[in-house]
């Protein structure tokens, strides 16, 4: 068995079998990460470039650790400290890097579809680490892995995505993935941050009242308010957003059951989520980060195995 795609551009292109394969392989890598020597030599003949056109802490460190723990050689590239500022195009930059014998590209770009464009022009395998407001597949995979680890399975689980659905690539990847794996998905947030026809287009539930959404779900994935992508005023103030849609301890204590709280990071404490919730026992935010390395190792391992010799 192997993946049906050569690249990981988005969850949209994956089959449920692909997703299960990645999650199962990640379980084995998670065990590797508990060993005294947290490293295997599977990809020691592979060179990977991390191409980051946008800032990142978690994803970048997580990918770099995953690559190193698979024994791969890595190069880091950030647009701000490179010839991109001299006007070099994306394709030229990548072709120059590839001519130095690089096998895989991990990329993040602020333009939606940038990795899809690249996939049509270069031979190397591409892993999308977030493109604009489109997809962030490895985040969705690690979210699914964490839900599975915490609750046992994805099938039939009720999962709500809260907040800035409009600008969130995490939300879109999560919706595709959870639907494919048989979970029930709801999005919740202010109407200005939820795309108008999302209910019909993606066949999911929409809720504008936070309390109702939390009452319905088993797992709540709280998303960051992406001020850098909002070029118009979509809510009056952060304080008002917090009052209406911030997940607070009081709100969670009022529910009939204990739900699982997730957040892809970085957290805006006191905006979409309160500090005491983010640091509570219900929250698996740091487990998500831990699982990220194992999931990314699985993705890189499975894609590298597809490469022809």
């Amino acid at each position, binding site marked *: 068995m192997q993946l049906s795609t050569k690249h990981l551009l988005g969850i949209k292109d994956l089959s449920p079998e692909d997703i299960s394969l990645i999650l199962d392989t990640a379980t*084995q890598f998670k065990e590797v990460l508990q060993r005294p020597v947290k490293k295997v030599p599977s990809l020691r003949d592979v060179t990977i470039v991390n191409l980051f056109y946008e800032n990142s802490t978690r994803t970048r460190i997580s990918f770099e650790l995953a690559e190193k723990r698979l024994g791969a050689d890595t190069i880091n590239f950030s647009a701000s400290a490179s010839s991109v500022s001299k006007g070099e195009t994306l394709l030229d930059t990548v072709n120059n890097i590839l001519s130095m014998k690089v096998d895989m590209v991990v990329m993040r770009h602020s333009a939606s579809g940038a990795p899809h464009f690249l996939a049509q022009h270069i031979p190397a395998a591409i892993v999308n680490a977030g493109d604009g407001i489109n997809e962030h597949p490895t985040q969705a995979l690690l979210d699914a892995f964490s839900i599975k680890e915490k609750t046992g399975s994805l099938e039939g689980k009720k999962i709500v995505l809260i907040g800035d659905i409009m600008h969130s690539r995490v939300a879109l990847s999560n919706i595709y993935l959870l639907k494919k794996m048989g979970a029930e998905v709801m999005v919740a947030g202010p109407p200005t941050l939820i795309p108008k026809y999302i209910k019909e287009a993606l066949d999911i539930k929409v809720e504008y009242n936070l309390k109702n959404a939390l009452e319905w779900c088993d797992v709540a994935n709280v998303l960051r308010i992406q001020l850098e992508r909002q070029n118009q005023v979509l809510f009056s103030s952060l304080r008002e957003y917090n009052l209406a849609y911030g997940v607070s301890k009081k709100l969670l204590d009022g529910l009939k059951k204990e739900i699982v709280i997730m957040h892809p990071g970085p957290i805006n404490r006191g905006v979409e989520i309160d500090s005491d919730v983010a640091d509570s026992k219900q929250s698996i935010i740091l487990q998500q980060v831990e699982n990220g390395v194992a999931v990314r190792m699985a993705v890189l391992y499975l894609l590298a195995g597809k490469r022809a010799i």
Partner: protein
Amino acid sequence: MRRLAHQLLENHLNLGNVVFIGLQPRGIQVSAKMVDMIRELCPNDPVHYGVLDITFYRDDVREELHLANKTDISFSIEGKIVILIDDVLYTGRTIRAALDALQDFGRPQKIELCVLVNRRFNRELPIQPDYCGKSIDTIISQKVKVEWDKEQVILY
């Protein structure tokens, strides 16, 4: 198999210092059976048993994609005598990978190899078993199959 178990016990009087590790996927049945026998023979001794998957240590990752199985070694192998158990020893490459993998778990005092069937020709690495159930001479085009329900080894 019973003879192998007795041989293992003869050479290792103190089981507290010995760990048994079966190799995924096909060494599991042999090793589980062997460990059961040893537990039966020495009911009062602690018998440490783990399973090891060597997929990530293979030298042919890029030629064909292999999927990993579970690794479960819930004890330290530091300073212990490790007995690797597999069904068939052929090219020796699996054992090479297993030796690499074991290094990542610690530094054992000694590693020994116990196999059910030893295919004597076509070895590609200098690896020989310390205990072996049966030695057979085969050529590359022949296949060796261990059938458990009939408890026999078949040559094709």
